[in-house]
């Protein structure tokens, strides 16, 4: 992707997120943030298939297991 296309994409992403002002004042910070935010997550542990496991409902009482 050319530099221009990259900066156009960043501008669109930033404006979609309502970060036009931040992009204008801190272009390097917003660029680094977009790269970091969009970076894919690492692989899940072996033997764990996220497709087969629904997103958990966060329940602190589950943490009492094992006590």
């Amino acid at each position, binding site marked *: 992707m050319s530099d221009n296309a990259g900066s156009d994409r960043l501008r669109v*992403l*930033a404006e979609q*997120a*309502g*970060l036009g*002002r*931040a992009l204008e*004042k*801190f272009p390097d*910070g*917003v660029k*680094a*943030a*977009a790269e*970091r*935010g*969009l970076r*894919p*997550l*690492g*692989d*899940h*542990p072996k033997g*764990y298939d*996220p497709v087969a*496991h629904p*997103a*958990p409902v*966060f329940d*602190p*009482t589950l*943490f*009492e*297991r*094992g*006590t």
Partner: protein
Amino acid sequence: MTDLAWLAVAEGSALVRAGKLSPVEWTQALLDRVAAVDPAYNSFLAVTADLALAQAKQAEAEIAKGEWRGPMHGVPYAAKDIFDVEGLPTTCHSKIRIGHRARFDAFTIRRLREAGAVLIGKTALHEFATGGPAFDLPWPPARNPWNRDRHPGGSSSGSGAALAAGLVPAALGTDTGGSVRNPATCCGIVGIKPTYGAVSLAGVFPLTHSLDHVGPMTRNVEDNAILYQAIAGHDPDDPTSTWRPVDDCLKDLKSGIKGLRIGVIEHFYTEDAKADPDQVRGINAAIDVLRRLGARVRTVRLSPLPLWTDCNRTIHASEAYAIHERDLQSRPEDFAMLTRNRMLPGAFVPASKYIKAQQLRAALCREFDEAMQGLDAVVTLSSLLMPCAIDDTAAVLRTYDQQCRLVFNVTGTAAISVPTGFSADGMPLAMQIAGRSFSEPTIYRIAQAYCEAAGTCIGSDPKTQPKLISAARPAAAE
């Protein structure tokens, strides 16, 4: 009697109860010391001298009448300026919060008020409990009492610095990715991140909703357990607060660790990342002490450290951005650069990535639970590296995630940082002791046995204390 600056909670409390020490005298001595010493360390954002003296006088009168409320009665403490105290601003060390005034006490502040504790003041932090030591905010960052040019850790930096400088015997911090344990590590004190739900988050300004924890910070393990007992317990105003009764962490605190089974998560610092040799030397020596005390030690494996970091940081960025979105959109320049750079990635995390991070969290929690079968606790490093120069922004950014603390924010289980000695250049070293949910009594017991045997905690002996510099020294980076 021990110098009042270095008096521990347990010792001071016993003297107060016996009528041998006036809480007013103790409080005034610390207020005087804060005035004399803290201009060089910036631990406090606000000193609540009038409130402190009023609380101390009330405690003294009650105890004289035989109305002793418990081991925090008449004991001075400080709170990170992220806890609401009725009538006072909760600045979160941020320009964004100027003009704020809290209408109610946070649950933990109320608990300590009811316990008769004495609030000396509110301590500095990394803005909104993230980012790093910033020089582009209305207040300077807290400094490390062991070397004021080095990072004091954070985000509960002021609480850590105040304890190490002998300004208070107890303090409150918060921990989302290690923010109690990092200043504990860097300042050579003791800090615990209790089990998620064990201590109410009500009245504490959130960084993230599912990773935040409130944690006690002290100079020794027994004091930490005392403070924990005072603030733990169910709070109907916090939906994440557990109904589980609070375990007694003091009953078996000094009963030793003979026969306890301890795992070492060694690959975090020997394979997954390059750790500072001094930190590794510190934990290896500490493991030898645990063995000598009768613990049965073996290594355990979990997923590689970078996967835990990825999981924590994705949730952290997304949830923190959700809280600060409006201000980051409308007034991004009012945040410190380090804070802004920490929070902005959350704007770009797709919903699918956040959901996958929560799925990953469930998988990692299960993995940890399985690894803990047959173990009473695990130990690993806290910081992989030594604290960098406080004003070296590039180093702060580079080292921010070089740590093993955020693992236990992902699992929500208890983890404590205890000092393991000093580096060649005199900076504190530390390790973490962690366990299952609600394993605080076991964690404290191991920490107590280790610290007592190793003698690594700051105490009344001047050899264990940092050599503080004169407040008149000009600040290099301010």
